[in-house]
């Protein structure tokens, strides 16, 4: 036997720890559990897709993450994306907004409008969405710590513009447990944070039943170092924690579960990702049906955005990220996602320019128009390899979820920093593996350019003037609003928060009175306190 033959027999495992064989046959499918969980698209357990005809009926929604500067700048970018064929919006907020600070807060200095648009009051939403038909374009708000406030603001803005809130669609990210694991825009401690998520779910179930108040994110947990099976398993544990909070209040699972949605990541091995999504659909349906007694099919659907994550893109040879993005979009389409987004090739450097955002959009459009990805449902279904891997990934996820439960549950593990510590140890190992070349990254540890070229990246400029404009706008609103209404609404908010009532009605009232994000947050901090991050390695 020569060296090459020995090489080929070296065992290979995917990132989730499943051994990959050189060939799969029907016997492997059988040995891994058979085809029992496959079924038909649109039917329980939905492994092949949540709808019968999937993209044949309607292609995925394309929703690039965008937002920067003040609301007027963001409004222009939104209109640009819509004019180029984007079918949904995903709003990026600046960090002060995300953690509940007004633009004139000293802690916000230097951060206004930097990584997203700044929002202080309802006026900013009125400007940002001016001229955009909220019935034609669904809006996703990437907001977590301050989500209850911004959901209230979005509903109030829509109502003010004459939309029927009962018919209004849209999504908020509003997944605070993953913010404690990665991304970090928490405000309140763990328990009241979960309660706020529950408040939004409960409120929307009654007042805005078509609005999706939560998008549970495996995405950021993966970016923090989780492997694909952990990404989905931890997300399910988190979704269950929210569902448990709402069920405790007396709601039946079918009253709200149909509006829960998910956000997952796609970088990595193509087959492992596709199997992850297929496995996840079956597992979530099973959990909802068997553990929660869901009866409506919609309550069992794993509705999701599958997004080409920044974690897979490289700083080196950034133009190669355009190609990576194309593969990620392909994976996303093969996975049967409802919504797709791609990090742009320049995101390791800067906020995407209009040019790079358009390339991402065209990448997704190309799959629809030229590659035949919308013609047939679940085209990889029935492949010996994909079906085997789907069974194995589902079992892996079940094992991880059982382990979380055995250790006291996701809320406890996140509160103690245990999940954070685990994924960060994995991120460290991965970084070492990349640096040693054990884990291959093109342009990073193999196929490097002899001489690094000038990178064709145009920097998104940060405009200091935006801060002045934003604060001037905030002061104008403060001067024009009725202070009696504001203090009345804030007093109600405080009373409801401390009495354990749902705070959403009070937030809607406060938002309509043009209370600021900072004022509302501070009222809640007085009752709930602030989160203290556990530091654990």
């Amino acid at each position, binding site marked *: 036997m020569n060296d090459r033959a020995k090489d080929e027999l070296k065992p290979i495992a995917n990132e989730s720890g499943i051994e990959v064989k050189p060939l799969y046959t029907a016997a492997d499918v059988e040995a891994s559990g058979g085809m029992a969980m496959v079924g038909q698209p649109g039917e329980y357990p939905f492994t092949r897709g949540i709808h019968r005809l999937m993209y044949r009926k309607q292609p995925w929604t394309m929703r690039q993450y965008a937002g920067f500067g003040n609301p007027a700048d963001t409004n222009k970018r939104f209109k640009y994306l819509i004019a180029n064929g984007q079918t949904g919006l995903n709003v990026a907020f600046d*960090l*002060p907004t*995300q*953690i509940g*600070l007004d633009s004139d807060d000293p*802690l*916000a*200095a*230097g*951060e206004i409008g*930097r*990584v997203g648009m700044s929002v202080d009051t309802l006026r900013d939403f009125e400007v940002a969405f001016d001229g955009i038909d909220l019935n034609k374009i669904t809006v996703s708000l990437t907001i977590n710590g301050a989500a209850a406030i911004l959901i209230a603001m979005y509903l109030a803005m829509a109502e003010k513009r004459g939309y029927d809130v009962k018919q209004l669609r849209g999504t908020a990210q509003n997944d605070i447990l993953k*913010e404690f694991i*990665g*991304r*970090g*825009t928490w405000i309140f401690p763990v328990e009241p944070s979960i309660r706020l998520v529950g408040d939004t779910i409960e409120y929307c179930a009654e007042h805005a039943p078509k609005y999706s108040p939560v998008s549970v994110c495996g995405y950021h947990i993966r*970016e*923090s*170092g989780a492997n694909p099976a952990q990404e989905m398993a931890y997300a399910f544990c988190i979704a269950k924690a929210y569902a448990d909070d709402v069920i405790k209040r007396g709601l039946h699972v079918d009253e709200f579960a149909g509006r829960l949605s998910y956000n997952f990541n796609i970088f990595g091995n193509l087959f492992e990702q596709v199997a992850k999504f297929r496995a996840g659909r079956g597992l979530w349906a099973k959990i909802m049906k068997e553990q929660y007694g869901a009866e409506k099919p919609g309550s069992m659907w794993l509705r999701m955005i599958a997004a080409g994550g920044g974690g897979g893109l*490289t*700083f*080196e040879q950034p133009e190669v990220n355009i190609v990576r993005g194309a593969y990620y979009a392909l994976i996303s389409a093969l996975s049967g996602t409802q919504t797709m987004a791609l990090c742009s090739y320049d995101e*390791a*450097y*800067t906020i995407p320019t209009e040019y790079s955002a358009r390339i991402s959009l065209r990448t997704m459009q190309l799959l629809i128009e030229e590659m035949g990805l919308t013609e047939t449902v679940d085209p990889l279904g029935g492949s010996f390899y994909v079906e085997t891997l789907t069974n194995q990934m589902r079992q892996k996820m079940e094992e991880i979820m059982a382990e979380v439960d055995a250790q006291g549950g996701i809320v406890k593990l996140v509160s103690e920093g245990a999940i954070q510590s685990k994924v*960060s*140890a994995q*991120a*460290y190992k991965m*970084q*070492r593996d990349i*640096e040693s070349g054990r884990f291959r990254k093109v342009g*990073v540890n193999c196929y490097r350019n002899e001489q690094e070229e000038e990178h064709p990246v145009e*920097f998104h400029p*940060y405009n200091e003037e935006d801060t002045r404009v934003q604060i001037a706008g905030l002061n104008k609103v403060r001067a024009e609003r009725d202070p009696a209404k504001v203090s009345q609404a804030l007093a109600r908010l405080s009373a409801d928060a401390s009495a354990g009532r749902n705070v959403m009605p009070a937030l809607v009232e406060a938002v309509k009175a043009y209370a600021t994000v900072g004022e509302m947050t501070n009222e809640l901090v007085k009752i709930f306190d602030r989160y203290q*991050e556990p*530091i654990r*390695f």
Partner: protein
Amino acid sequence: MTQRRIKVLLAKPGLDGHDQGAKVVVRALMDAGMEVIYTGLRQTPEAVARMALDEDVDVVALSSLAGSHVPFCSKLKPLLEANHLQDKLWVIGGNLPAQDHDALRRLGFSGIFPTGAKLDAIVDYIREHVK
């Protein structure tokens, strides 16, 4: 040179929540035998300067990925100097565009480790430059 363990304060400045990289660097420095105090998220310049003084560290390290590194370091520099920490090693890593590197060096951050920097390069730099 005495073999005292190098003591590093690794801080997350401002409101940026990206801590994956910072935590990876903490582990690399610990594996290299250094003592590391990791601050967690959302540190003000005042807090960083105070901890650097109180903990008597050899290295003040920042990890910044959300673009506010220059304004933050501009505020931090006079505070570190007021605490007589100008002789300590100041380093920064993260999403740091090349066009900002001169400004960061002028602000006293001699070690600059943008995205793509290797862990061993960070460890070696600190070992070589701690006075």
